[in-house]
């Protein structure tokens, strides 16, 4: 079973990270899910694949009533992101799934109906959940051609999907980045190989540099906080992407 960690809390406003499943089979990539709560309502970022649904659900339900999740935010269309959709809909058939317009007719292959999906335009949009206003921030081609991140201006946290992801070896899988230089080695191959566009990367770096960010929360690996946020953006801005591993 996964564990939950509250990474931000201010009254009824919380960010809960659902992370690190020791029983996960080695052939399946590890994922982080983030639940953003405001009082009785919540949105779940990248709810994960169908096979890890039991681990995510059981950990999450220990902290929050899953039937009160109003929306799912799907950064892109990959199976490790959103293939559990039909299971979440079992608990709340009214649940909304926010996803890039580009994938709004592809993701229904995982479940849902015409009422389920809220297509996000390329420029992004505001998402209202339980009175909190979140911003879907464009991250196209990083790595998916229709890719979005989710920014919480009050908590100053950016859920950054696959950007910032790292494939961490056992023993170096803490929730937060502790030593940036050591950590980033585990992120380098992932970014060079998975990210396809240098221009998209520079656009993203410029865009997020303008945001006030305390934490960068990727879908794989560890969370960047404090000075490591800027360190990561600077590092990402200068690496070469879209190349095959040699």
């Amino acid at each position, binding site marked *: 079973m996964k564990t939950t960690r509250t990474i931000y809390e201010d009254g009824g406003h919380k960010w809960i990270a659902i992370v690190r499943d020791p029983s996960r089979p080695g052939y399946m990539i590890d994922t982080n899910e983030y639940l953003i709560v405001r009082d009785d309502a919540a949105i779940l970022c990248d709810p994960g694949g169908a096979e890890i649904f039991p681990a995510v659900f*059981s950990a999450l*339900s220990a902290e929050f009533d899953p039937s009160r999740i109003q929306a799912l935010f799907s950064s892109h269309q990959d199976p490790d992101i959103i293939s559990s959709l039909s299971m979440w809909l079992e608990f709340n058939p009214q649940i909304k799934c926010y996803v890039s317009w580009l994938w709004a007719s592809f993701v229904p292959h995982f479940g849902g109906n015409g009422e389920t999906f809220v297509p996000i335009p390329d420029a992004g949009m505001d998402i209202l959940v339980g009175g909190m206003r979140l911003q879907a921030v464009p991250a196209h081609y990083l790595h998916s051609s229709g890719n979005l991140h989710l920014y919480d201006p009050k908590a100053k946290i950016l859920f950054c999907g696959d950007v910032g992801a790292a494939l961490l070896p056992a023993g170096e899988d803490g929730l937060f980045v502790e030593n940036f230089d050591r950590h980033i080695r585990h992120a380098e191959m992932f970014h060079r190989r998975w990210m396809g566009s240098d221009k998209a990367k520079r656009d993203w770096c410029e865009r997020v540099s303008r945001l006030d960010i305390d934490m960068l929360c990727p879908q794989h690996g560890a969370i960047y906080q404090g000075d490591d946020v800027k360190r990561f953006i600077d590092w990402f801005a200068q690496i070469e992407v879209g190349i095959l591993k040699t």
Partner: protein
Amino acid sequence: MSIEAGRNRGQQLRRIVRINEEIKRVIAAAFTINLMAMNAIFLAKRAGTAALGFGVLSNELRRFAIDLQQQMSMLSEMTYSSVNTVTALLKQARLNRVMEVTLNASAGSGKVLLEKILHGRLETTLAERQEQSDGVNRRLTQMITDTVQLVELGSVLARSAKIEAAYGGGLSVSLTQVSTDFEQSISEIQRSLEKLTKHHLEESAA
């Protein structure tokens, strides 16, 4: 639905594939009979009054081939419905498997919520799907029975054509050859229908 039941659904899908293969064979044989019957009609006309009876039977065999093709197309559509139902049951089985694992891993309010949902699913969704599956199976059984009867009629027509061929005057040898071909094609269809019935009975029993 258990994992074992899910496996059975997989076997059902494989049986439906085999049924479809037999349907395709029957449609191809019916198409051949149709062409042969057209040729036989021309041949009977050339033979004149001596082959009047053969001509009538060839016409009937052509009609039989067209009816059989239509019947098999309807069977094909029905097996498509079966695929839909079995696929839906497979999806339900997968969902249930994940839900059962989730239930075992959960505690507190999450567990209560899951128990409620799982109970509701077993009570309604699965029962509805099973009913749909049974309905499609019943219709399929009826249609296969009707097809077997239709092919029996075709067999009688082919045998009668063989008898009539003996009175075909100068073209008697050719007409006998054509009626033998009719018989062989219909025997092929009967063998396919036997296999199809066997696969269907296995599918219904699963």
